[in-house]
């Protein structure tokens, strides 16, 4: 018994002392959690985005009347001003006084193409007259459809203009605001109303940490110990492989527990994830994840002949399984071969099961599948490991 405890402690200690493992098992997950939350946690919030927008007013106000084009310009200028000390949504680029507008337009188009501007808004000549005469005035919007940012900016600009449009219609008595249809947005049933990316990401990163620890930690520790004849020194003592295995598993459990605690504290108190891990289903899926990835590591250790071979296999499996398991982003429909990876990937089921268990989503995977597929992998791993895993260097 004391041998098992000492082995568990050894595995935990050496994992934390070795910089490579400390980095991949603890530092990297923390880094990923923080950086992804910083990037995606603010989408749509004031101060969290900024677009470089070109604005050109070509209206010459021939024919007089109220300056409607000026209202549009003012609306954009208002958005372009910092509010509550926060950065504005738009940083406007307008032709300077006396600058040739056509020249500016050509340059703006060029800058949009070169990625310096996100979108360009052009108020055409005859804008006022068109509206006043009841025709439809058309504002031209230059966008780069290959850029996400440009498309997002275009969506916001369209919304701004439709607000101006409504305002004009109301003022000209063509639209009755009172009779407007009430509009509201509702999340999918089963999901929380206040949803943050951090709460979606935190369980994913915790599972990623478990996954990395299992995938790399198990073959790494065991195969290196075997190939460098560390294990041989154990086998000449009364220690049996069975006890070694139990001690190692306990140590790995301790490592995962530590990962969980660190990530939970940072996610919960640093990033405000607000996830309730005390739910029994969530705890059960964390445990299932730990066991599945542990046995997955043993599966790799059984297949590989040498430690380096084991690490190579783990490296090749790592990226597709991690990203095609829905850990960081929800997965949509993927083409056949990738969808196949998603479907056999145990990460998919555990991540989905954990998020359902946490009450974050309702999920499309049946609870039975999200338990049975990982259990199937565990069974397969045990079977292969029992037949093939050698405790002696070849």
């Amino acid at each position: 018994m004391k041998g098992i405890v000492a082995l568990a402690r050894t595995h935990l200690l050496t994992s934390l002392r070795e910089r490579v493992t400390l980095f991949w098992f603890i530092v990297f997950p923390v880094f990923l959690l923080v950086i992804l939350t910083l990037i995606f946690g603010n989408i749509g919030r004031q101060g969290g985005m900024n677009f470089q927008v070109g604005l050109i007013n070509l209206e010459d106000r021939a024919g007089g009347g109220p300056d409607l084009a000026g209202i549009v310009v003012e609306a954009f200028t208002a958005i372009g001003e910092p509010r509550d000390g926060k950065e504005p949504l738009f940083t406007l680029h307008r032709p300077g006084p006396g600058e040739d507008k056509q020249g500016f337009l050509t340059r703006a188009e060029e800058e949009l193409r070169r990625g310096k501007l996100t979108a360009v808004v052009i108020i055409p000549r005859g804008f006022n007259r068109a509206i006043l005469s009841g025709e439809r005035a058309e504002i031209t919007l230059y966008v780069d459809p290959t850029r996400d940012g440009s498309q997002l900016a275009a969506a916001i600009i369209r919304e701004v203009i439709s607000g101006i449009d409504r305002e004009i219609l109301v003022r000209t008595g063509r639209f009755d605001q009172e009779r407007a249809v009430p509009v509201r947005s509702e999340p999918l049933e089963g999901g929380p109303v206040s949803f943050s990316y951090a709460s979606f990401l935190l369980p994913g990163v915790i599972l990623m940490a478990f996954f990395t620890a299992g995938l790399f930690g198990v073959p790494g520790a065991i195969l290196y110990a075997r190939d460098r004849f560390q294990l041989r020194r154990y086998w000449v003592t009364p220690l049996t492989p069975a006890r070694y295995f139990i001690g190692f598993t306990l140590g790995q459990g301790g490592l995962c527990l530590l990962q969980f605690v660190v990530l939970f504290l940072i996610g919960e108190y640093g990033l405000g994830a607000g996830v309730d891990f005390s739910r029994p289903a969530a705890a059960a899926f964390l445990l299932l994840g730990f066991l599945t990835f542990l046995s997955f590591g043993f599966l790799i250790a059984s297949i590989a002949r040498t430690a380096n071979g084991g690490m190579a296999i783990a490296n090749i499996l790592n990226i597709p399984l991690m990203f095609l398991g829905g850990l960081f982003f929800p997965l949509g429909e993927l083409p056949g071969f990738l969808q196949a990876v998603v479907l056999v990937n145990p990460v998919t089921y555990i991540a989905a099961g954990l998020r359902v268990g946490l009450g974050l989503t309702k999920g499309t995977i049946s609870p039975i599948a999200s338990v049975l597929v990982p259990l199937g992998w565990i069974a397969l791993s045990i079977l292969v490991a029992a037949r093939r895993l050698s405790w002696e260097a070849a």
Partner: protein
Amino acid sequence: MMALLHAEFVTFARDKAALAFTFLFPILFIIVFGFIMGGKGNPRLGLVLDGVPGTTLLSVLKETGGIAVTRYPDRAALEEGIRKREVDFGLVYDGKALVFVYDPTRVQDNYTFEQTARGISTRFDLARQGALPAVSVREVPVVKASGNWFVRVVPGVIAFSILSAGLFAVSGHLTMMKERRQLDRFLVTPMRPVYLLAAIAGVRLVVAYVSAFLSLLVAILVLHLEFSVDWVRYAVFVPAATIGSMGMGAVIALFVRRPESAGNLANIVAMLMMFLSGIYFPVEVMPSYLRAVSAVLPLTYMADAMRDVTGVMEISAFEFWGITAALLGLGVVLLPLLSRYIVRADRG
């Protein structure tokens, strides 16, 4: 010198991990990430007309254009459809109110869907009151390539793989050689350390060329993307970027002595750059301090230049040659510092 080149090459080819990282990773990244984040076509709307004919709504949706509409019998079916990603978001209309239904986990897309939803409700309101919009928007795509989001990602990934290969060539490989006392063996020969560096750089150049080319090939053949590569610029930029990246790796190697730590730092640097250089995620949606970081990251500019080389985006000739020269300069200035590092063999 040739022998050294050969030895360097054989070492590289035998290192399976290095091989996998250099050739397999960028391709895997392009494919996997591309499909996960990609497929951003027109938004797909699931519609439920709850006991009303909804003729006006239907015609508004039809007029709007750019939105693919799928009808569902009831809200439960709609929600199932959203969950299964048959549609991106939903709309339920019962004659009294418009209710938009969304999947809160799609944090990256929901903002766009929300804007689309608002547009629909505005047009619907106008149509119901028989009003025509006074102002409308005409969108003009301004883009060099006839491509989509994905076309833009590929050169970014290639730039990233050049960067990480260069970083690791120095921070991983060289510090490892030092720790294993392999450098000492070179030092006892009359060989000048610069030659060793030149050999490493030479091999990496070839590797970067092949790797970048393979990635492009996969993108073209497997993903059916179109690029118009400027081979002259390609021939100049890829070596400059490789040497520049190795120069950055040299900085890491000079600051961090231990190979593991150097490797880890290189990893963090590479990841940071990948996330913040606008390769996958638009820089515009990041908070200002992250945008400030993005503006000083070399990868931001390397990706721009690579997009230019592949004809995805156009930057000015001044910028392109500026970036290329800066990268080359970075390498030429920083790499020789390493030869002093090699000589200063610490026997601790």
